């Protein structure tokens, strides 16, 4: 049974697109068939983060409007044969998306894939509400920072009221993904801790992705971090998150500060 997931946050710049690419790739690396859909019409970026920007011919809007057939718009990842991308349009605006059109495309994708990941645009307007509309589960991407947590709270409220599932009286299962977590700053009390965020948002934790150079490097080269630096801390965090999505019980470890510099200094002094 195909699962439709929305990756959402309300606030921009928290890592929705990066996380969609990383989670999609991690699922595909585990043998699942995955399609990631960019809902950010007019400001598409998932293609860029996945390194497929030069292969976009048709997009979601073309399919919704019947200009192109779904197989024409789907782009197969060059590295993982069971990972596909449905890009957003760069020239149209979000009003070109219709509820019925999106419903039809998602129903069609459900017959072809195990996982459908919808990368939501920032904000709470049409693009964002359509991205979450048909979701079975939601991944709320949050940074340990006040404005991000507030916006996540708002999005959680919308998931509980504006989705098809909510309207039918069913639940959209929600998962919290904390990204850009800086263990050192949290330890020094400069950044909201995981416990703070969980207490405030009261949503189960899916994973903690530490702030890392590897994430930026991966998007620089257009390759999901789980592929580009598979053994890095963020890649492992995404891989664990995906295992949890698939129902595995994996212990959650809150990243701790790595005292590399300190270690080096101490070692030098000892020598």
């Amino acid at each position, binding site marked *: 049974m195909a699962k439709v997931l929305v990756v959402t946050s309300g606030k921009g710049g928290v890592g929705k697109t990066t996380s969609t690419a990383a989670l999609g790739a991690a699922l595909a690396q585990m043998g699942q068939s995955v399609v990631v859909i960019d809902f950010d019409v007019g400001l598409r970026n998932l293609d860029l983060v996945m390194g497929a920007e030069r292969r976009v011919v048709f997009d979601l809007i073309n399919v919704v409007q019947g200009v192109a057939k779904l197989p024409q718009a789907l782009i197969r990842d060059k590295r993982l044969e069971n990972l596909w991308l449905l890009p957003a349009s760069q020239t149209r605006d979000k009003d070109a998306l219709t509820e019925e059109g999106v419903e039809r495309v998602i129903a069609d994708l459900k017959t072809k894939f195990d996982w459908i990941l919808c990368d939501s645009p920032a904000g709470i307007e049409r693009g964002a509400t359509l991205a979450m509309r048909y979701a079975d589960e939601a991944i709320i991407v949050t940074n340990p*920072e*006040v404005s991000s*947590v*507030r916006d996540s*709270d*708002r999005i959680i*409220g919308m998931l509980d*009221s504006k989705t098809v599932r909510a309207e039918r009286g069913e639940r959209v299962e929600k998962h919290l993904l904390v990204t850009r977590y800086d263990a050192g700053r*949290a330890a*020094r*009390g*400069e*950044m*909201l*801790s995981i416990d*703070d965020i969980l*207490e*405030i948002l009261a949503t189960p934790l899916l994973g903690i992705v530490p702030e890392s150079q590897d994430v930026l490097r991966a998007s620089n080269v257009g390759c999901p971090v789980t592929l580009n630096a598979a053994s890095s801390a963020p890649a492992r965090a995404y891989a664990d998150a995906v295992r949890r999505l698939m129902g595995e019980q994996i212990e959650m470890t809150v990243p701790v500060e790595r005292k590399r510099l300190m270690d080096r200094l101490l070692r030098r002094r000892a020598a």
Partner: protein
Amino acid sequence: MMNVMRLFGARAASAPVARERLQILLSHERGRTGAPDLLEMLRSEILSVVSKHIDVDPDKVVVRMDRGKFVSMLEVDIEVPNGVQRSKMVAAT
């Protein structure tokens, strides 16, 4: 001086402040989500039912919701003047 304090970590941690501010803010925002519409709907429906039978001043119908941790209190306050007129709508039928 500031630098010295910083060196010794005397700067107060800001995360607890962030946490407290968020908790206060969100408790207000969550209470408000959907609530204004609900209260306004209740108010207008109560007003229409009551004024079928009694003449009341629409401004004197107050509907309030107090949210508690475990239960919430819906308070309906309708001021009825003495020597109240039965509504003409009812009188006519």
